[in-house]
């Protein structure tokens, strides 16, 4: 591939891999076409967006089946198409796309959840005047996200990653007339940029060490044997190999995108965007891209680990994930905005995924990513339905009793909520969370993450119960009566609810199909999975934790329907705990007091320098030049002009005189000629006299 000429991809191993690029390109083309549409063409825009994503979904399913079929025959499916983008000197920059189990699962998830949310958006955004713009951005996002998922090159991944960031910015600020939305968009963009700078550093480092940014390339890719051995042999300090250090830099990019500590602050604010955006971008897919990225570069992080051991990089990932899981769950307890609670819940669950990656490997983290994508999209769309039904009310204290008014929304929301809490046995969230807890329990280095994650599970059950009690139980406390949402919105809810339950089947200890698929083992149905040592106790423990959380929540909030102005039940019993949680543990304030204050001070210093010092110098120079110019003017007027004007005058007068000669009378000319000849002849005679 290195030698292949630019833009001539070598023959792919299979047809579907050859046309895999169509999956992200179809929505991108749709986005471009929608951008050119006139504003009011709603039907065309929606049809284009949904149609193109349906094509992507179809192709994704074919690709998925192809991978599954290959896996069932016992062969490793890792097909890729690489091509050279450009070369300078002897260095070639290669791009490419890949089809392996990881990518196959993600493209199906992204295009499927995306399609449901697109359909939902048709109903949710029906009255928005910028309907076509919304679908243009949404399609661009879907395309870029699918691009992230299938790229076989860190560079291509980074490009799509940035497009995804851009669309996130555009969609958070979709209602840019609202100052809060504009500010939130800016905050999201700037905060994720912090992570992306580290990500870019990691890319550059990797490229300088391995000379390629391709992940897999017949043994010479950056995630394959030779490059890893080479990277592992270099020490980067702090007990890290170069591989681990590069992995951590890339992880920093994931921290920004996936809202991990300490860069999580943008995600709750991102809820200013339309609710489908929150569901698609800030719950199901984009924020999960960070987790996917870590899973993709997992070989970098894990290389050098002893069997059942871990590396420094993975330890860092684990601790960041586990602390984020608890931190965000704590804050979620004391929020009153329905979407903000879900946003903090998303951050917390992303923490679980990261911890799962660090503790148990790719399959554990990715399984939670997939199940979470479905039930969190369900919760967000349910929240959107609630907001829609309550006439754009987002404060859960002004809702209540919606169980009767919006039965379908309530039912699906409850399923999503139970899946998120990890309600035992029935729901997918239980199995995926259990996998992470099991990995944490078996972790040799420390039991800290295990306790953190169990505590997080308790909090999750608690805050979700609180939210559901406020919204769906008690009696209605809003202004106008609520109404159920149209079918175009409830249908996606139902489908997502089905998957929130059903997806658990593919990842139970009895039949760990998902893990086997990702780790390339054979999956077998084996009831002995349940009697693995310690597993039963763990499942009992996590069930107990969930029940305690649910019970506690119900005890404090169930059917109470307090007045909107009344203090929260938790606030009454523990005001010292409530205040910091309500204020989001002061993270924004800390940033305000440190980073932002620092920048603001620097900005003021720079402004002062600009005005006083540089401005002063510039003013001095201006004044000097002005003086010089005035002196020149004086010289010009009184001296240069005088001489010049006189000359001009003389020339003009002379010209006037001469022009009289040229009177248009031919014979005058002839006379002058004759006179001149006479004079010449006279001179001749005079000079030739002896």
């Amino acid at each position: 591939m290195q030698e292949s000429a630019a833009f001539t991809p070598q023959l792919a191993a299979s047809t579907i891999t050859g046309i895999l690029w169509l999956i992200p390109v179809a929505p991108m083309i749709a986005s471009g076409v929608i951008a050119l549409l006139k504003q009011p063409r709603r039907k065309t825009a929606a049809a284009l967006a949904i149609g193109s994503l349906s094509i992507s979904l179809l192709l994704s399913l074919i690709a998925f089946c192809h991978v599954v079929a290959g896996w069932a025959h016992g062969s490793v499916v890792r097909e890729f198409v690489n091509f050279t983008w450009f070369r300078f000197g002897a260095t070639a920059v290669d791009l490419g796309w890949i089809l392996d189990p990881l990518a196959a699962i993600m493209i199906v998830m992204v295009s499927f959840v995306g399609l449901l949310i697109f359909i939902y958006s048709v109903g949710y955004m029906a009255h928005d005047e910028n309907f076509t713009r919304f679908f243009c951005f949404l399609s661009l996002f879907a395309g870029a996200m699918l691009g992230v998922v299938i790229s076989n090159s860190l560079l291509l991944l980074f490009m799509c990653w940035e497009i995804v960031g851009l669309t996130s910015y555009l969609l958070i600020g979709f209602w840019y007339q609202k100052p809060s939305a504009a500010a939130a968009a800016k905050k999201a963009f700037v905060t994720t940029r912090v992570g992306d700078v580290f990500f870019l550093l990691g890319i550059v480092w990797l490229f300088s060490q391995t000379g390629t940014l391709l992940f897999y390339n017949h043994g010479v890719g950056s995630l394959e044997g030779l490059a890893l051995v080479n990277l592992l042999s270099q020490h980067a300090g702090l007990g890290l190999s170069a591989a681990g250090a590069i992995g951590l830099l890339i992880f920093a990019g994931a921290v920004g995108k996936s809202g991990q500590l300490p860069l999580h602050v943008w995600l709750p604010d991102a809820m200013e965007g339309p609710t489908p955006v929150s569901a698609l971008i800030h719950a199901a897919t984009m924020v999960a891209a960070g987790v996917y990225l870590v899973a993709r570069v997992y070989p970098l992080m894990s290389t050098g680990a002893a069997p059942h051991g871990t590396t420094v990089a993975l330890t860092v990932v684990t601790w960041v994930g586990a602390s984020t899981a608890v931190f965000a769950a704590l804050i979620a307890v004391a929020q009153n905005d329905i979407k903000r609670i879900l946003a903090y819940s998303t951050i917390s669950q992303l923490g679980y995924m990261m911890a799962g990656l660090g503790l148990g490997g790719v399959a554990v983290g990715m399984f939670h990513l997939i199940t979470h994508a479905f039930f969190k999209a369900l919760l967000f769309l349910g929240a959107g339905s609630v907001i829609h039904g309550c006439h754009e009310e987002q404060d859960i204290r002004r809702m209540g009793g919606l169980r009767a008014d919006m039965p379908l929304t309530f039912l699906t929301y409850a399923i999503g909520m139970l899946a998120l809490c990890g309600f035992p046995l029935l729901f997918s969230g239980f199995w995926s969370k259990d996998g992470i807890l099991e990995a944490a329990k078996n972790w040799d280095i420390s039991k800290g993450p295990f306790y953190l994650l169990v505590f997080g599970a308790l909090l999750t059950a608690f805050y979700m119960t609180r939210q559901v009690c406020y919204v769906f139980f008690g009696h209605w406390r809003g202004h106008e009566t609520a109404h159920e949402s149209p079918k175009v919105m409830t249908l996606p809810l139902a489908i997502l609810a089905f998957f929130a339950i059903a997806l658990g089947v593919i990842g139970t200890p009895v039949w760990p199909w998902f893990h086997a698929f990702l780790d390339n083992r054979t999956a077998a149905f084996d009831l002995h999975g349940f009697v693995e040592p310690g597993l039963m106790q763990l499942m009992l423990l996590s069930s107990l934790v969930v029940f305690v959380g649910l019970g506690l929540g119900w005890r404090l909030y169930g059917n109470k329907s307090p007045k909107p102005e009344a203090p929260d039940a938790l606030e009454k019993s523990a005001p010292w705990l409530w205040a910091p949680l309500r204020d989001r543990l002061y993270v924004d304030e800390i940033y305000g007091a440190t980073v932002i204050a620092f920048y603001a001070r620097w900005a003021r210093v720079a402004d002062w320098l600009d005005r006083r010092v540089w401005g002063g110098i510039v003013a001095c120079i201006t004044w000097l030049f002005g003086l010089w110019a005035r002196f020149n003017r004086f010289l010009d007027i009184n001296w240069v002009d005088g001489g010049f004007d006189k000359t001009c005058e003389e020339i003009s007068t002379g010209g006037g005189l001469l022009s009289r000669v040229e009177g248009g009378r031919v014979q005058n000319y002839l006379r002058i000629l004759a006179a001149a000849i006479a004079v010449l002849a006279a001179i001749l005679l005079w000079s030739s006299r002896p």
Partner: protein
Amino acid sequence: MTSVGMTTPLAGYLLVAAMLFAIGLAGALVRRNAILVLIGIELMLNSANLNLIAFWRYGPHPEALTGMMFAIFSIAVAAAEAAVGLGLVIAIHRHTGTTELDKINRMKG
């Protein structure tokens, strides 16, 4: 080359040519009519031809017909020139209705 039978010296021819030139010049300068001015110019030209012949005839190589050829060429060119000049005069007359040179003063800077 002997000058047997040449009773008229060179100066006589030159004198006649000079007079002819002066008359032609005077005519070209004082006449108002364009055709008469052309005739004056023609006179001047022919005085020059006369000079050419005279200098050839009294020159060092009268056997070579150089002067004769020169004069014949000159006459041929003069004929062409006269044709062009008359053509111009006719064109001007058609255009302005006059051949008075004083009235034709539109060519000036």
